[in-house]
């Protein structure tokens, strides 16, 4: 069903489909830009498409979402969450966070771009700095921040609460800090592609790219300062410190085998999780929530972030194997031992020397990749990710019941089941055969209503 989700993309297709009544199956060939067909997230997590049949259109191509461009991908990934089966049942309503926040998220990249543009009179600096704010990202961080903001506002002030402008600013700031770190990562790792286009370090002078990263951070700091809240500034400045310390931790692997996992988790917290956790804490502080609530927000963000990164590390092993037909394992190639490897080396101690030499000898990457797959490393990583996801969902359940609070729960599933944004994404045109079963009672031809109806059923 995820195939149907990009309603805008397939509007024409659906239009026709909606005219078909009865159990007719119609086939259409749709061209979409796709990452190479990865494994379906459903399969990764050993689930089946339990709800697919109740969702109307069946998923012809085994849940392969046309997760290409931003908005499309957002919808697609969120729709998959409906089929995981681990959600509490809200009757017919499944809350899609991206749809719920459509108005809030709308234009967020434009706002970031104009904020950056206002802050420089150098054309090239503006070009580099705004390069990754083209709306092609998943905008996960702003989404979670706004969701938490609305959920906490609802929790504190009840139904008539609104999103504060300052909270939306924090959402923008979180994405800016994230991008600034991506830009510096690109120079460090010399990556070629990101978000489906050449990465900044391929296109521009590296010195200028580094400065553009500093520039984004500076503009973000100015925005933080303009919120005029000491607490929020402290919380968000912690993020920047954590990011850098995380990078430093990634440089060396001097720790012993016992310390290694703790080291990995701390590094993960600093590099990925701190940003999510502290930005949701910041929006909670801005709403005027009490300490317990902002701590709850922080813990939600921490668990969600850990779960997010664990899935990321997992997919680095899984998606590449199926997609490319050969192991790519980007993390291994960068010399990084992530959770699957660390789990695997309990069973295969021969991984230890490879970890210590950062997989630099010929054949190391392939060998490690193979051992990870032979071990239970992937399963254990998945288990840990799910554990943190469930913890986040449990925390979110403590907030006052509201659509936003429900969406926070849904988000934990969305993160667990997302499709990997492959670091080096190869652009392929894949012919997707969309098989859609349209049920008798699909009520309307109205295109706009299509998607929402479809996934509510």
């Amino acid at each position, binding site marked *: 069903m995820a195939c149907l989700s990009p309603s805008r993309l397939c509007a024409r297709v659906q239009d026709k489909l909606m005219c078909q009544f009865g159990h007719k199956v119609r086939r259409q060939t749709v061209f979409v830009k796709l990452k190479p067909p990865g494994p379906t997230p459903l399969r990764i997590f050993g689930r089946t498409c339990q709800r697919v049949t109740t969702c109307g259109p069946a998923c012809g191509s085994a849940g392969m979402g046309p997760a290409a461009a931003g908005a499309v991908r957002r919808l697609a990934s969120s729709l998959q969450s409906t089929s995981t089966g681990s959600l509490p049942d809200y009757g017919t309503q499944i809350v899609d966070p991206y749809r719920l926040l459509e108005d809030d998220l709308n234009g967020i990249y434009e706002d970031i771009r104009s904020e950056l543009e206002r802050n420089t009179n*150098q054309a090239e600096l503006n070009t580099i700095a705004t390069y990754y704010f083209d709306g092609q990202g998943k905008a996960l961080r702003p989404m979670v921040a706004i969701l938490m903001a609305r959920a906490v506002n609802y929790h504190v002030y009840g139904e008539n609460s609104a999103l504060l402008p300052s909270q939306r600013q924090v959402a923008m700031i979180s994405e800016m800090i994230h991008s600034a770190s991506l830009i510096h990562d690109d120079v460090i790792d010399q990556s070629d592609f990101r978000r489906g286009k050449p990465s900044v370090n391929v296109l521009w002078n590296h010195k200028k790219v580094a400065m553009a990263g500093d520039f984004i951070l500076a503009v973000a700091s100015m925005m933080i*300062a303009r919120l005029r809240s000491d607490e929020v500034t402290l919380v968000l400045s912690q993020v920047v410190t954590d990011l850098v310390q995380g990078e430093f931790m990634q440089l060396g692997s001097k720790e012993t085998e016992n310390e290694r996992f703790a080291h990995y988790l701390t590094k993960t917290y600093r590099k990925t999780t701190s940003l999510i956790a502290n930005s949701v804490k910041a929006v909670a502080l801005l709403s005027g929530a009490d300490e317990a609530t902002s701590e709850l927000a922080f813990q939600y963000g921490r668990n969600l972030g850990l779960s997010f990164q664990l899935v990321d590390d997992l997919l680095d092993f899984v998606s590449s194997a199926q997609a490319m037909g050969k192991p790519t394992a980007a993390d291994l190639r960068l010399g990084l031992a992530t959770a699957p490897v660390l789990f695997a080396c309990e069973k295969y101690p021969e991984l230890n020397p490879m970890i210590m030499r950062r997989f630099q000898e010929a054949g190391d990457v392939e060998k490690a990749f193979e051992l990870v797959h032979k071990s239970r490393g992937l399963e254990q990583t998945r288990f840990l990710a799910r554990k943190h996801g469930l913890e986040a969902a449990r925390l979110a359940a403590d907030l006052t019941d509201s659509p936003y609070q429900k969406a926070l729960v849904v988000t934990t599933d969305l993160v667990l089941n997302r499709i990997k944004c492959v670091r080096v994404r190869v652009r392929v045109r894949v012919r997707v055969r969309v098989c859609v079963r349209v049920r008798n009672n699909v009520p309307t031809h109205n295109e706009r209503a299509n998607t929402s109806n479809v996934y509510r059923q």
Partner: protein
Amino acid sequence: MSFSCLRNVTRCGMVKVSSSGALVSKLGGPCVAREVQTSAPHAAVAQHNTKPDWNRAVSEAEKIVGYPTSFLSLRWVLSDEIANVALHLRKLVGSNHPLLKTAKNLIYNGKNNMQAWGLIVLLVSKAAGHSPEIPDMEQDKAAGVLHSQRALAEVTEMIRTSHLVHKGLVNMNAPQVGPGDPDDMMFGNKIALLGGDYLLANSCSELANLRNQELVELMSSAVRDLAEAEFLGERDEQNNPLPSRPLPKDHMEAPLEWECVLQPLPMGGVAGSARREWAARHVLAAGALLGKSCSATLKLAGHAPALQTQGYLFGCHLALAWQAFLDLEAFSGPEPRSFSLVGAPLAFTLQARPELYELIEQGRRSVHDVDYHKLYEAVMAGDGIEQTKQLQREHIRAASHVLDSFPNCDARTALANIIVAMHP
């Protein structure tokens, strides 16, 4: 716009930086060293031999504000991250990565360059005093500055050092990266980028701890200005700056006024105008940070906005006077092998003889391809040096003028001595 205009501006309490009266910056040694790498030793030597006053002025000033300027270097020794960087730096020894030179300059020239900025911030803090309402707990009584002001001085040094370190990256994206093993260069870049980020991140949290959001905004805007500086005008493949082609007077855009505190510096009428381009370049690269730091320290002390503005102007003018002083050094001793192509003496010479721009164009790939000898002779033959001295005098006068508004005290004398030490 003239110098008097600047004064009018300051009277009405707004910071405008006039076009010609402009701000200059003189970046310290490491910076110039990086732009024209071979000139580094000459500059350092020249400074040492011809300006003994400078060192004395600085070391006496340090006594006035208590202990040697800051604990920053001590903190470095104690920090895991920096220890990590130092460890990795060792691997780079023997490679050609400019990070080594940056690191060396930071250590050996520390007194003259990096720390001097923090020192000036502290001297301004002490010279201006602080509001009587500030509780004793927050003061460093012996030194006569606030703890927060000392923290700010460190932030200034960290921001500046971080910028210097990031400027010292190698562009691996150029057709010719230059001598050195690409792996070494890449590794050096990684360390330089992370090291600079570490300093930047630390300055973020130090600033946040001061719990003054206007201050955070002001200092963040200085970081933004430094980043902007690296994009101004023409560049060679390693991002070394080249002057823009000089424009005849009647082709120049009307200069915009620079009301540049939180807004980015307007670029109208900058390119191709010797004075204004030089001023814009160095305001962004140095004046903004020193000026904003001086302004911020007065804010911390609870002074009125008008005095904060004065502080900003003082820092800007001092930085520009300092830059002019550096630019002149290349032409005061024996002929150097190379010198900054964006220095004021050359800018004035190019303005007077636009045909010389052909020589500059040879440096489009690398500034090392330029015929420095011909340019040197042209500068020596023209009145570029004299005009630069005039420019420097203007900025010194402007800085001294601000100084006069502070009460007479040892810190003010120390600042005056530093200014005198750079007199042409």
